[in-house]
C-alpha cells in the first residue's frame, strides 16, 4: 500500500466516518520521526513516550482547525518541539534545578540507560549535544540527525534561516571544543 500524502490524509480526516482511520495513518506516518526528535531532547524513553502521546492528542484536538497555512509535517514538528521544551522547563522548575544540574542529570541518565547502547564516541557526541543550550540542541539535532532543510526548520521554529545557520555553526564549534577537551 502506497503512503498517503499529507493532503490526502487531511481530506480523509475531514470525513467524519473515516476520521479515526485517517488519524491512525497520520500517527503511523510520523510517529518515528517525532519520537526520535523528542527522544534526543529528553533522553529517557518513558518521557519521550509521554510527550509523543501528548503531542498526538493535541494534534487530534487541533487538526479540525488546521488551516493548512503550513505543511502538516511542519505543524506536527512544531507541536512536538513545544511539548518537549515545556517538559524540560517543567522538570527544571519541579526539582528547582539550575540548567547545568539538569543537563548533568541527563548525562548520567544516558550513561546508565539500558536503552542507550551507543559506543564511546556516540556517548561522547550525545554528552556534547547535552552541553548545548536547548534551542541550539534542537537546531543541531534537526540538521544533523533529521537532515531537515533550514527553510523547513525556519517554519517549524519560527526563526530566520540566518539565525538557524548561525546557531548550527555555534553548536558544531561547541561540540568540536567538547571533543578536543574530553
Amino acid at each position, binding site marked *: 500500500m502506497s503512503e498517503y500524502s499529507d493532503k490526502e490524509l487531511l481530506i480523509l480526516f475531514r470525513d467524519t466516518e473515516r476520521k*479515526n482511520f485517517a*488519524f*491512525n495513518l497520520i*500517527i*503511523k506516518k510520523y*510517529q*518515528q520521526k517525532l*519520537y*526520535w526528535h523528542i*527522544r*534526543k531532547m529528553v533522553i529517557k*524513553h518513558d518521557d519521550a*513516550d509521554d510527550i*509523543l*502521546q501528548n503531542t*498526538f*492528542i493535541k494534534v*487530534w484536538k487541533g487538526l479540525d482547525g488546521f488551516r493548512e497555512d503550513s505543511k502538516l509535517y511542519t505543524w506536527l514538528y512544531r507541536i512536538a518541539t513545544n511539548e518537549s521544551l515545556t517538559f524540560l522547563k517543567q522538570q527544571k522548575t519541579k526539582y528547582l534545578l539550575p540548567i547545568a544540574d539538569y543537563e548533568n542529570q541527563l548525562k548520567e541518565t544516558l550513561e546508565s540507560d539500558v*536503552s*542507550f*547502547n*551507543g*559506543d564511546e*564516541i*556516540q*556517548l561522547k*557526541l*550525545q554528552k556534547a549535544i547535552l552541553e548545548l543550550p536547548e534551542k541550539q540542541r534542537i537546531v543541531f539535532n534537526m540538521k*544533523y*540527525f533529521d537532515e531537515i532543510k533550514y527553510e523547513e526548520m525556519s517554519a517549524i521554529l519560527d526563526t530566520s534561516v540566518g539565525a538557524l545557520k548561525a546557531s548550527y*555553526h555555534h553548536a*558544531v*564549534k561547541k*561540540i*568540536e571544543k567538547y*571533543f578536543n577537551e574530553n
Partner: protein
Amino acid sequence: MSKTWEDRIIREDYIMDKFLEKLESLKETKSNPFKVPEGYFDSLPTRIQDRIATNENRQSIFSQIRLVIKPQLAFAAAFIAVALIAVTTLEYIFKDKTKLPASTGVYTRIIEVDASEFTEQHFIDVLLDENKKSIDNKKNSDCYIDFLVDENIDYTTLIDEL
C-alpha cells in the same frame, strides 16, 4: 594584521569542515544508539487512540453530569437571586422608614412648643449677645492690625514668621 586575521578564519573553517566530515562519517557508520522497547511503534497508534477515547468518554460523562444537574443549578441560582432581591428591597424599605423626615406640621409644632418656653426678652438677649461677639471679634482684629503697624511688621516678615 588583517592577513593574520583572515588566515585564522580560514584555518578555523578548515578545522570545522574536517570536524563536520568526521561527524558525518560517524552518522553514516554508526546505527542509532537509542533503542525502544520491542514492538513500541506497532502498539503506539492503538495506545494513543485508546487515550483519546478515554479522554472523550470522561468528557462526555462530565457533560452528562452537567446536563443532569444543570436545571437544579438553574433553580438554585434563581432562588438565590429572588432571595437577594427580597432582602435588598426589605432593607431599603426599613432604612427609608427610620430616616423618614418629619412633616412640616411636626416641625411647626416643635418650634411652637419650644418657643413657648422663652420670653421675648430671651430672644433679644441672644441676638444682642451674637452682635456683641462679632463686635469683639472686630475689636480683636483692629488690635492685631494696630500692633503690626506699631511694630512695623510688614507682610513678608509676617509670612516668614508663620
